[in-house]
């Protein structure tokens, strides 16, 4: 098998392509995914120990025999199992079942980002069937379902938005998160359905708002001076360490203005937004992700600094921004984007 390895492992162009896509996706997702996004209970969250499991999983590429590869998958699963078990004993919770195991496995897989698809196919094709039974079969199936889950994180543009948005809301809302995110991650559910779980305050309007948001994000992407747009906002590229205590007041003021503006826009959009075409809202999912992520990061930093009081701010950020653009449906080009942002800023300061 080791001699054949070079010619049978990931030899089909399709497989290689699939590998690359999956790997790209994981590279993207691993930047912002958090244990709670996958329904991992707080008791079991322990990212440092999961590194051990990640290491095991990454070793999969060092060996060529299907059996060895399988061994590392099983090792990884065992490490996770043991960690979960210790955590459950320590906290006197019920022993961990698949409810706890699978999410951690998916998380670890995303973080480890092995050459996943090819490895699994290879094991499936060349591991003797009679050996792939029982426990090995079970954990291998878990790996397959982790792969299926990750591949199905599709149409990322909308979903990441929501996942990321949820990230930073209050933990007390966690049940609410779970509901929403379920829909977000499942590719089949329609946009409307997902959005129906959105902010309680704006149930009826949110669909159009998010369409506007998507439009806005798409425009931003076409805009090569994207970062200029965000420069209009003094804290957008700041780091937590840059702040002084004096900035707090400033930040709070900015935040209040933003909320006020957003709420006004939300109200105002009720009638107007219905007329906007949808056609571009789904465009360029991959790239959209980058924008969202970027702004998400920055906002996260801001939030960390600003602490508890402004839990809503994160949600306002992207909505507010995209909204401003979309109030001009026939939005010309990048300059306009920048200037509209700018104007907006000015007016709000009055």
């Amino acid at each position, binding site marked *: 098998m080791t001699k054949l390895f070079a010619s049978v492992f990931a030899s089909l162009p399709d497989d290689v392509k699939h590998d690359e896509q999956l790997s790209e996706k994981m590279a993207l997702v691993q930047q912002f995914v958090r244990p709670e996004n996958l329904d991992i209970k707080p008791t079991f969250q322990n990212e440092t120990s999961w590194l051990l499991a990640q290491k095991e999983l990454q070793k999969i590429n060092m060996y060529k025999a299907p059996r060895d590869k399988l061994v590392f998958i099983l090792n990884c699963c065992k490490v996770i199992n043991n960690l979960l078990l210790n955590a459950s004993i320590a906290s006197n919770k019920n022993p961990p079942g*698949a*409810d706890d195991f699978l999410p951690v496995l998916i998380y670890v897989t995303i973080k480890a980002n092995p050459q996943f698809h090819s490895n699994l196919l290879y094991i499936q094709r060349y591991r003797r069937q009679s050996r792939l039974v*029982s426990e*090995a079969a*079970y954990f291998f*199936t878990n790996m397959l379902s982790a792969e299926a*889950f990750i591949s199905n994180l599709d149409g990322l543009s909308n979903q990441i938005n929501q996942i990321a948005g949820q990230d930073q809301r209050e933990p007390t809302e966690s049940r609410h998160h779970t509901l929403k995110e379920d829909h977000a991650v*499942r590719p089949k559910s329609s946009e409307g359905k997902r959005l129906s779980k959105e902010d309680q305050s704006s149930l009826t309007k949110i669909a159009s708002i998010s369409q506007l948001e998507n439009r806005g994000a798409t425009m931003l992407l076409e805009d090569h001076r994207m970062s200029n747009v965000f420069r209009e906002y003094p804290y957008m590229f700041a780091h937590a360490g840059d702040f002084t205590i004096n900035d707090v007041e400033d930040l709070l003021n900015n935040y209040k203005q933003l909320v006020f503006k957003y709420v006004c826009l939300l109200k105002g959009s009720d009638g107007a937004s219905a007329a906007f075409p949808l056609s571009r809202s789904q465009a360029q999912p991959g790239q959209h992700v980058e924008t969202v992520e970027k702004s998400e990061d920055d906002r996260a930093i801001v939030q960390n600094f600003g602490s508890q009081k402004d839990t809503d701010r994160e949600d306002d950020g992207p909505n507010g921004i995209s909204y401003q653009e979309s109030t001009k449906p026939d939005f010309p080009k990048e300059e306009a984007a920048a200037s509209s942002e700018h104007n907006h800023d000015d007016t709000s300061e009055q």
Partner: protein
Amino acid sequence: MGCSSSVPDRSSGRSTGLNNGENSEGPDAKNLRVKLVLLGDSGVGKSCIVLRFVRGQFDPTSKVTVGASFLSQTIALQDSTTVKFEIWDTAGQERYAALAPLYYRGAGVAVIVYDITSPESFAKAQYWVKELQKHGSPGIVMALVGNKADLQEKREVQVQDGTDYAEKNGMFFIETSAKTADNINQLFEEIAKRLPRPSSS
């Protein structure tokens, strides 16, 4: 090692260490081996039922040594057959529901668990029943289990509802309590009795 996936299995004497060795013995009329998949909303106590079944009858205080997501347990029936259950737990959260077919593929038994204090989990159980009727292996043995029967005062799903639903769908129904171990062994014994026996050999 060769590329032997297509070679007929002659592995009975060989042990690679990866295996638990028990697999060499093929299923026959006296020793059945069956894959059992557990379905149900998260938090209904799927894994507790299994743990109770696998470990409970020996020493309830023993510290478990492996996770409860995969367990196997052999039981002996009165007609001197043994049934080895390989129990596959599944993640019950809504977002992982789409992955379930990977798990119940090839399963001989499906145990669908709900929590008698949670009508939602009962609705979810019905969803799984329909799902299995559509996509499960033909002839799969299904059992509907209302767990947490010890919480009588918080009961929200009546026994009758469970019984009726199970009857309509040709399933076996039982209420259990993983906490008090009530009906746990009965559940698995009953399943074992209902398993189709290999007619020949």
